[in-house]
């Protein structure tokens, strides 16, 4: 129970500190916009497929021109602008995507973010979750030691008690029975057996419940693909590759043409040294080469010379067949962050299963998570407008929020059908 509560608390904090809500992009949210639209090709201070962006407002002082370029670079190139045409040539004539949907305010927000961006210093402090976990471990150790000490004290006291009883019996002349050594004492034996049964039973039950659960599963993948480099250092939006999560029940693994969008240009790794879990160093450039061998890409000619073949990634997060889980339900309707269930993915060089993916774990979150219920200002998902009762209860102050559980999120046929 304690364990659950801790997890729940952790989830709650992560939820609270959730950086951005994916669908609720506000214009001023430059970081989110940058990650969603630009980060797959640009970094503020590093050159990727496209140039490093910091200082762009001083390089291109005409704001209108810069906006026009970002919205539709092809049109700007067409006007014969020298700066941009030179840039285009210097980046191997790789065309930039067009963003006709970005508003001026949004572009300003992105530019503002880019200009004020600072390289992340040192590793950020632990996300709080780890701390709680350590504490939990400490506690159990403490309890264990305490229990042991108490058990020893009890044993000593019992021995003392029996010795005293014997002494007093001797004194009163009651014939003493043949002294029984404690290891043949039936009381002790029963006691030990009982403890063994309880402790053994506990572990057996725990083991049985854990059957088929694969928390911390971290298989070796055909390519050392580092989420830390992609989603962490380069801040590529999760949805750039796992776009299925927005639409479908499956988040999906990107097809290789998605990888090649960037890696057609990025053919070597120059970042911080990469390490496997066991400490061995990984040659990032060699891993990129593996991608080329799968796609049949020839770096020298810049052409696909051989037919591509699929990469057989090892699936890490597996749910039983009788569970229906839908990614879009959670991230789009529920506005849950990827990290809530997948852990601090931006710090993982090799992905491992962060959550238990057990039913108790799901249910706990459903009990505690608040839904995007419309408030008095009208914000929130209009779907829930039909829950008249909860609207009234909120107004009356009978309840202060609506959880997933309240709208039936813990019922069997929400996930099993």
């Amino acid at each position: 129970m304690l364990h659950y509560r801790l997890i729940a608390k952790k989830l709650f904090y992560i939820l609270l500190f959730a950086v951005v809500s994916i669908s609720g992009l506000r214009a001023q949210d430059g970081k989110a916009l940058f990650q969603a639209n630009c980060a797959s090709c640009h970094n503020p201070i590093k050159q990727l497929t496209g140039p490093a962006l910091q200082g762009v407002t001083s390089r291109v002082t005409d704001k209108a021109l810069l906006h026009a370029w970002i919205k539709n670079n092809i049109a700007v190139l067409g006007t014969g602008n020298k700066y941009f045409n030179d840039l285009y040539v210097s980046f191997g004539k790789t065309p930039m995507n067009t963003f006709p949907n970005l508003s001026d305010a949004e572009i300003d927000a992105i530019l503002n973010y880019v200009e004020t961006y600072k390289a992340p210093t040192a590793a950020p402090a632990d996300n709080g979750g780890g701390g709680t976990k350590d504490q939990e471990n400490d506690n159990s150790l403490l309890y264990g030691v305490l229990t042991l000490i108490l058990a020893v004290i009890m044993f000593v006291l019992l021995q003392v008690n029996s010795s005293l009883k014997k002494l007093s019996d001797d004194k009163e002349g009651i014939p003493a029975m043949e002294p029984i050594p404690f290891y043949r004492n039936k009381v002790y034996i029963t006691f030990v057996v009982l403890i063994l049964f309880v402790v053994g039973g506990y572990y057996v039950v725990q083991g049985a419940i854990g059957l088929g659960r694969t928390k911390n599963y971290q298989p070796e993948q055909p390519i050392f693909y580092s989420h830390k480099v992609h989603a962490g250092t380069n801040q590529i939006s999760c949805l750039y590759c796992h776009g299925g999560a927005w639409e479908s029940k499956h988040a999906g693994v990107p097809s290789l043409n998605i990888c090649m969008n960037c890696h057609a240009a990025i053919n070597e790794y120059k970042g911080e040294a990469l390490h496997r879990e066991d400490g061995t160093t990984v040659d990032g450039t060699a891993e990129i080469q593996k991608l080329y061998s799968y796609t049949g890409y020839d770096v020298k000619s810049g052409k696909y010379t051989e037919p591509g073949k699929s990469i057989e990634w090892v699936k890490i997060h597996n749910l039983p067949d009788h569970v229906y889980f839908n990614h879009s339900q959670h991230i789009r309707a529920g506005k849950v962050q990827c990290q809530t269930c997948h852990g601090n993915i931006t710090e993982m060089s090799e992905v491992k299963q962060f959550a238990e993916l057990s039913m108790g774990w799901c249910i706990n979150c459903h009990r505690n998570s608040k839904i995007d219920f419309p408030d008095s200002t009208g914000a929130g998902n209009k779907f829930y407008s039909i829950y008249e009762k909860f609207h009234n209860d909120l107004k009356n102050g009978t309840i202060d929020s609506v959880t997933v559980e309240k709208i039936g999120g813990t019922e069997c046929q929400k996930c099993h059908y």
Partner: protein
Amino acid sequence: MSDKKYWQSFGEFSESEGFKQSAQNEFREDLPMEASLPADKQGLLDAKTPRRDFLKYLGFSTAAAALAAGCEMPVKKVIPYVNKPDASELIPGVAGYYATTYISGGNAIPVVAKVRDGRPIKLEGNELSSFTKGGTSARVQASVLDLYDGARLHYPIQMVNGDPQEVSTFEAFDKMVGEAMTGLSGSLVLLTSTINSPTTKQIIGEFLAKYPGSKHVQYDADSYSGMLLANEATHGKRIIPSYQFENAKVIVSLGADFLGTWLSPVEFGWQYVQGRKIDAKNPEMSKHYQFESMLSMTGGNADDRYTHRPSEAGAVALALLAELSGGSSSSSSLSPKLKAGISKAAKDLAANKGKALVVSGSNNPNVQIIVNAINEAIGANGTTINWGKPIQTHAGVEADMNALIADMEAGKVGALLIYGVNPVYDYYDGEKFKTALQKIKATVSFNERLDETAELCKYSIPAPHFLERWGDAEPKAGHIAMIQPTINPLFKTRSFEDSLLKWSGNNTSYENYFLQYWTKTLGSTEAYEKALQDGVVEQPTVALAALGFNNAKVAEATAAIGSIKKGGNLELVLYQSVAMGVGNQANNPWLLELPDPITRANWDNYAIVSPKFIKQESIPKKYRFDLSKRSEADKFEVHPDRLVIKIKVGSKEISLPILPVPGTPDNVIAIAVGWGRQSAKPENTSEFIGRSVVGAGKNVFPLISFNGVTAEWSVSDISFEATNETYPVAQAQTHSSYEGRNEVVKELTLEDFKKSPNEILEEREEELKPYGGLEKFEKEGTLYGVYDKPGIHWGMSIDMNSCFGCGACVVACHAENNVAVVGKSEVLRYHDMHWLRIDRYFSGNLEDPDDIQTVFQPMLCQHCDNAPCENVCPVAATNHSSEGLNQMAYNRCIGTRYCANNCPFKVRRFNWADYSGADSFPNNQDANGVGHFDPVVFQMNDDLTRMVLNPDVTVRSRGVMEKCSFCVQRLQDGKLKAKKENRPLKDMEDVRTACQQACPSDAIVFGNVNDSQSMINKTRAENKQRVFYALEELHVLPNVNYLAKVRNTEKISESVNEK
């Protein structure tokens, strides 16, 4: 006894040692164990390793292996595309929807195919079609399963001594056929089903032009030549008009099963119920008379139904015409009761001129001429009959076919190309066709499997399933339906059109031909693409058109009918069953297991007789029952074994089990066609036609009689002979009467409804009086608390006036919810798994076929808010949701079956065996372990067929209970869609159950009861007087309500039952 000694050998004589030894060991022969062991293991069998050690090791290793295997999770791979096609609908896990068209012979129904991860898994009606209004039929719903039928021909073949041999490439096949077709001594003939596809017609035209002297013959197993010829005689055109049942206040059907199988049932079904839906404000409905020789599904829905002998069909039409033209039918030899019925119908028809319609199922041109005259007399021409938009699904006439057979016999046909027809099986003179076929030099079949005809052809090049190909159809003039592929062809198939194009020297592919044709016809690429997207191209509505009527042939027809011989003691009528039709989809497990709407039997055809029939003396005593006596009826119902009789039709004989069905005239036997598919060598049936179809019924097409012009589906003089054998007939419902318990079914007459619209309400009030009355019933009728449903409260309403029993919903439910098919042997044990069934009840005097009234009641989980099943589950595997769903958690279920026993509606289904193959160990369906499974179970579980499974629905394993979930996967999906779009749920749009979508008559309404604007709320409010809940007084508080059936008749028949 003498002491004389006999001996066989000298050894025996002398009793030598050698002889004694050999006599002792006479039967002993050591197994050659030692010999089979390698040299270093010799002596192993003598080792001192006793059996116990062996068992110890075995036990240990099994336990260790189990432990090791059980604890280790299998490694699963996830494999993305290398280069994902640039199509937004290709997101794994998201279904795409493509408009296409169901094709079976000339019939075409526009549908939308749901494609999940590249596999079409469900067909829904296309609501953009004004032809079907989004309706489907059971056969349409089931056709997606045909796509994955492993018995389809996998590649082009050449028959060598009755053995199909693969032809490696299409080029090789073209070459082979090209050689066979050169230097033909006779003409080339294309024999196809009715072709109404504009492009195919054009391609055929071009092909015929390339081969001078060639011709095209169209053939339909269910011939409508009687109508075609009659219309030619009276209206000058050999066409079939379209019918507008919705405009008719009075409908008289002379043996036409227009809701089930006649002509265009999906279209007619929608039209028909427009006149049957009724509201209290304006309680009017159409009047439907049915005159027929057996109880058809349409007859079951009729207000007034009269039966006659098949041989009297013409006389009935004549009498009706006579009544209408002022004369009287008194002269005819019909029974007085029938005459009274005819004159009643005639009066109604005459009173509703221009708002009346008469249709006839007869294939006799003379009868149809009379029907045309009747329709002319009642002003149907141009009001309820539309000559402007002919129905083009059936164009074949027997004369063409007979001429072809004569040519074939005379050796005038050099090559015969057969596409989409199977005359060896379904022509009335299939034997003759078969013999003639063998005389032809080059025979090529394009049929999708090696059916009875294709296996006799020298070459077969299978055509793809309609879900794998391009195409178009025009089932009704001005209503074009487009076909587009929804999956890459599963097998090495090539479309008929592609072959014709190739063989006529045109190197365009059919796909391009099709594209060019429609781009040109529609004017632009955009229009073409829109047509593909919509799936239908419709001409603007044109006014109803009449066509001049020529009276000249009526007298002749009258005379011809007059000379029809009187029927004998016993007559035969053949019909198409709603599930099987003419047998095009015979190997479809969903259709095989779909209970017939009337007989409720599946997996077979049988001889339908009247209840009086099995009372007669010529039936052996053991099988003689008087069904009107309760005790005998019980005995009859308990055993599925039915007496087999030998039916003699002319020189032909057929043995079939008999099944008494109320409403059948006493001197009639009715048998369904479309069954009994069998290869020339019966042992090939399973491979050539299909695994499931083996042994399902008998073929009665050969019993069809020929009147010299057309084939008639009746024989006027037959005899029978009882045998000593029995044959089990599997029925999903054996008790046929609701015993007047109006807690289950409520019905009343239109007149009563007009007089006292609140009759049903009062009846309910009366029933609930002991528990607080209607008002207080919910709270006071129970000890349990009432739980509120914030937000959503799902509810369903089923209008019993609209439901006519077609079974489209039943098959749709199978497809949507991965419902298992169990096979005949399991249905016989009442182990059928239908989540949704259509109960059929009879009322009236069992022995009077005209008095029988039929009710169809779809029965599914009622999702009771106070569900008795939930209370008895020891593990809470079934419980209630806050949205009013009665939930079933399969993985929690331990299979006590308490819930099923406690369910008053008997809608829970238990997996008695591993029907789905879902259990984890491989030999779980081993016949030795779990009993006998029919081949169909294995067909449903092979990897190909499993592609039809809906990935959003769990496949249930052995030992768990299941039942209707209100399509919870669709509910969840609809809610999610609304949430994603940040809006409230759209009623009747976001969420529709599979049964609701499939229904051609919109009998089912589903939605959120909490939403005051929802259709379900409106339906319940507007029909307050007709709303009732099955077994309401039990206080189970169902979320499914029914709307009481109103009959436009004088009385509701009472069951006459001797206790």
